[in-house]
C-alpha cells in the first residue's frame, strides 16, 4: 500500500491524462488490494492463535483451488451461480436498489427448474428442456421480487427489509415445495427427482467444468455493457443516483424500479437453475448455500464493475474449493472462509473511511 503511494508521489507527470490514470490505478491498489492483503494477514494471525501455520493453510488453499487440475475445474464450475447472482446484483446496486433477497429468489428458481426438467425430459428435446428450465427459474425469481418491488416503487417501503423478509419466506417455501410437492418418491432422503448427468448442461471440452460458466460470464459482461453503455443503463443509473432528477428528466421512476427488481431477481433465479441443471441435478430438502450473501461483498469490492466482479469471484471460488479440502487436511473448519471475508469487509470499510477522510482533508 505504502509502496504504491510513494510511487505515484514521485513519478514525474507525463501530462494530465497519464497522471489521472496513474492516480486511479494507485487508488485502486490502495482501496482494493490493500484491504485484501490486510485481511489475509489478519486472518493469518487468527490461525496463528489457534496454532495453525497460516502459510501452510494459504498454500494449501491456493494449490488445491487454483493449481490442481481438478481443483481448478471445480473452482470454475462453482463460479457459474455466483456470476449469475453478481449480474443481478450489479443491475440492482447500480440502480440504487438493495436487493438483498437474492437467496430466496435463487432457491425458488432452483426448485422451479428442478421440478420442471425431470417432468419434461423424454417429452421434449434436451436443449429445450434446459432452456425452459432457465426461463422458468428466471420468471419465478422475478415473481418473488414483485411484492418488494411494488412496495418500493409505489409506497417507498425500504427494500432492504422487504427483500430480506421475502428471502426467509422464499427459503421456507422452497423447502415446503421440495418436501411436499416435488418429492422424489423413489428416495428416502427428501429431494426432487434427479436429472441424469447426460441431460444436464453440457460440460466444457474434456473437463468437468459446467458450460453454465460460459453463460454466466456472458451474463455479467452483458449486464456491464448495458449498465455502462446504453440508454437503458443510464436511465437506471440516474434513478439510482438521484430519483428526483430522474423524475424531473421525465423518467418513470416506479416503472424502472419494478424493472430493476425483475431483472435482478430473474438473474438470481437463473443462478439457481445453473446450479441445478448444471451441477447438482436435484434440490435436496434444507439445501440453502446462501451464495447471495457471499457475492454481495464481492460485488461491492469490485465497485459494481462487471470484469472486476468476475475476477474476484474467480478467486473467491478458488478460496471456497481450496478451503473445503483444507478443512479436511489442515483441520481448519470450512467456515473459516467466512472469517476471511468478514475481515476483508471490515478492512474494506476502513479503507473507504480513510479515503473519504483524506479527500475531505485534501480539499
Amino acid at each position, binding site marked *: 500500500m505504502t509502496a504504491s503511494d510513494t510511487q505515484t508521489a514521485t513519478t514525474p507527470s507525463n501530462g494530465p491524462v497519464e497522471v489521472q490514470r496513474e492516480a486511479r490505478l494507485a487508488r485502486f491498489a490502495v482501496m482494493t488490494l490493500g484491504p485484501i492483503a490486510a485481511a489475509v494477514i489478519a486472518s493469518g494471525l487468527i490461525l496463528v492463535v489457534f496454532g495453525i501455520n497460516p502459510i501452510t493453510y494459504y498454500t494449501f488453499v491456493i494449490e488445491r483451488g487454483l493449481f490442481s487440475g481438478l481443483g481448478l475445474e471445480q473452482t470454475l464450475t462453482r463460479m457459474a451461480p455466483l456470476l449469475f447472482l453478481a449480474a443481478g446484483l450489479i443491475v440492482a446496486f447500480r440502480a440504487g436498489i438493495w436487493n438483498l433477497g437474492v437467496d430466496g429468489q435463487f432457491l425458488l428458481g432452483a426448485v422451479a427448474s428442478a421440478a420442471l426438467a425431470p417432468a419434461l425430459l423424454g417429452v421434449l428435446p434436451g436443449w429445450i428442456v434446459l432452456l425452459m428450465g432457465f426461463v422458468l427459474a428466471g420468471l419465478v425469481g422475478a415473481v418473488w421480487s414483485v411484492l418488494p418491488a411494488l412496495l418500493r416503487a409505489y409506497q417507498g417501503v425500504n427494500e432492504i427489509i422487504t427483500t430480506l423478509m421475502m428471502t426467509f419466506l422464499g427459503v421456507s417455501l422452497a423447502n415446503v415445495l421440495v418436501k411436499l410437492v416435488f418429492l422424489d418418491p423413489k428416495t428416502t432422503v427428501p429431494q426432487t427427482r434427479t436429472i441424469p448427468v447426460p441431460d444436464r448442461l453440457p460440460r466444457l471440452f474434456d473437463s468437468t467444468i459446467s458450460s453454465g460458466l460460459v453463460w454466466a460470464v456472458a451474463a455479467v459482461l452483458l449486464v456491464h455493457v448495458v449498465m455502462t453503455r446504453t440508454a437503458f443503463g*443510464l436511465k437506471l443509473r440516474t434513478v439510482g443516483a438521484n430519483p428526483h*432528477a430522474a423524475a424531473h428528466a421525465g423518467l418513470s421512476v416506479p416503472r424502472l424500479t419494478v424493472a430493476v427488481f425483475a431483472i435482478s431477481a430473474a438473474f438470481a433465479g437463473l443462478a439457481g437453475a445453473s446450479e441445478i441443471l448444471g451441477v447438482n441435478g436435484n434440490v435436496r430438502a434444507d439445501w440453502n448455500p446462501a451464495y447471495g450473501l457471499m457475492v454481495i461483498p464481492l460485488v461491492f469490492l469490485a465497485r459494481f464493475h462487471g470484469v472486476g466482479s468476475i475476477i474476484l469471484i474467480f478467486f473467491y471460488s478458488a478460496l471456497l474449493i481450496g478451503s473445503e479440502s483444507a478443512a479436511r487436511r489442515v483441520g481448519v473448519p470450512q467456515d473459516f472462509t467466512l472469517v476471511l471475508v468478514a475481515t476483508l469487509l471490515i478492512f474494506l470499510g476502513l479503507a473507504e473511511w480513510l479515503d473519504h477522510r483524506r479527500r475531505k482533508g485534501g480539499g
Partner: protein
Amino acid sequence: MRDLARTSLVPLPAKGVEAVGLVSVTKRFPGVVAVDDVSLGIRSGEVHVLLGENGAGKSTIVGMLAGLQLPDEGHLTVNGVPVRLASPVESLAAGINTVFQHVMLVPTLTVFENLVLGDAWWHRPPRALIEARIAELQRDFGLRVPLDAITGDLSLGEQQQIEIARALLRESHVLILDEATSMLTPQGADELGERMRRLAERGLAVVFITHKLSEAYRFGDRISVLKQGRFAGEIGPDALAAMAEKDAVDEMVQLMFGSSDTGLASAARQSRPRGACSLKVSGLSTQGGVEEMALSDISLEVFAGEILGVAGIDGNGQKQMAEAIAGQRPVTAGTVELESRNVTQESVGKRRELGLRYLTDDRLMEGSVGLFAVSENTVLKEIGAPPFWSYGFEKPARIAAHARDLIQRFSVRTPGEATPIGHLSGGNIQKVLLGRELSGAAKVVVFNKPTYGLDMQNIAASRQRIRDIAEGGMAVLLISTDLDELLELADRIAVMDRGRICGVLDNDATQPAEMRTAIGRLMVGEAPAEVDA
C-alpha cells in the same frame, strides 16, 4: 455533567444584556450562500423575532446556534465571549435550547422518559425533583406536562409544550423556537405567544423564528428581518411598541420585499407587443399534503415574447405550479395548453418535445445528478434519443461534443465535460441546466427561482439570458421570490398566496415603489390590490 433538576431558572444575566451574538457570520452550502455576513445580538428578557421568507437564512442561523453547523466565517458569542459550538451538546452546555419546527421527541416513550433522555445514565432519574419542577413550570407558564402519558398520543401543541418544558428544566439562557407556530392552531399559537412573553419577563432570551408578520408584531419585542441570507434591517423594541400593527406590517413588508440595493439595478426591460398565447393554464388544481401546498384553480396565460413574473412568499405553491405545468405533478382538475394544444395528459418527455421547458430551482437535488459528468447531465432529459444514442447505445463522442459546445456557448467554467457536475459552483451548474433547457426547439420556458443563491455576476448574466429568451420570441414564466428581479424583467406579475393566484398586475417600470407595495401586500395576503388586475 448537566443535571436535569439541580438548578432552577435563577442564574440568568440581567435583562437587556446580550446573551448570544452572531458576529459577521457567513455560511455557505454547495452552490448557495445561505447566510451572508450577518451580525445579530440576542438579549436577555426579549422576544427576538427572526423574520424572513423560506431560504432567507433563518434555519441556517438556528442550525449554527444549535450546534448543528459551524459558521464558515465570523463567530458566535455567548455572554460576550467568542465560542465554537461544534455539537448540540456544546450548544446545550452553553445554555442554548432549541425547539425545532418538527417535534424532536421519541413518540413511543413516556413524557417523563423523554424529559430525562440524555441525562446521566448511572443514576435513577430524580422523579420527585422533576415533578416539583414541572409543577412550578405549570404554575408559572401554564405548561401542561402529563409525565406518564405516551408522547405519541399527545397533540403536536402538547408535545411542543413538553419540548419547552425540557428546555426550561435544563439551564437555559436562550430558548429558540423555530417556526414553532406552523404546526399549531391559531389559538395554540396565541397561547405560545403568551408563554414566550412570560419567559422573556423571567429574563430568558427567546428567539422566535417565523415568516408570519402578524405573529412577529404581536409576540416580538425586537424584529430582525433577513432577506436572501443577508441582514435586511431591524425594528427595535421602542420603535415597535410605538407602532400600530398596520404600520409595523408596512415596515416589515418594506424590509422583506424592499429594494435590496444589490447594485444590480439595470434598466427595467421594455415590454414589447406580445405575440400569440403560448402557454394557457386553466383552473389547475393539485392535491396538497402535510408539507405541500395544494394548488386551487390556477389560471394564467403567457404570450410569445412575454415574461410573466410570479411573485409570492416562498412555499405558497410556486414549485407545485411549475411541476404541474411541466407534467411532474398529477393534477386533480384543470388543463395546461401549449400553443392551443391540450397537453394535460402528456408526459414530462412529451411536453419537453413539444417545446415546454422547466428549469427547476433545485439545481443539485433535482436538476442534476452530482456524480455524473457534465456531459451526461447535458443530455439527461434526452436519454435514448438520437443523435446521442443510436439503437439504445450511447455515442460518447457526440455527447461530449454537444457538452463542449454548450460549455462554450453558456461560458460554463469547468475543468472539462467529463468533470462530475457536483464539483461545479452553483452558478455554473445553473448555466449547464439552462443550456440543457434551451437546446432544441424551446417555446415556453418555466424558470423557478433562476438566480437563487448565485453571486452577483451570475445573477446579472442569468437575467440577461432571460431577457434574450423573451426577445427571441419564447414565452417565459418567471417564478421568483426576488421582487427586484421581477420588477426588472417581467411584463406582468402574478402574485401567489396559499396555492392561489391572488392577482395579476401589469408591471409599471416608472413606479417601482408603488408596484413593490402593491405586490408585497398581495403576497402577505394583507390587502386586496388597488391596482387593476
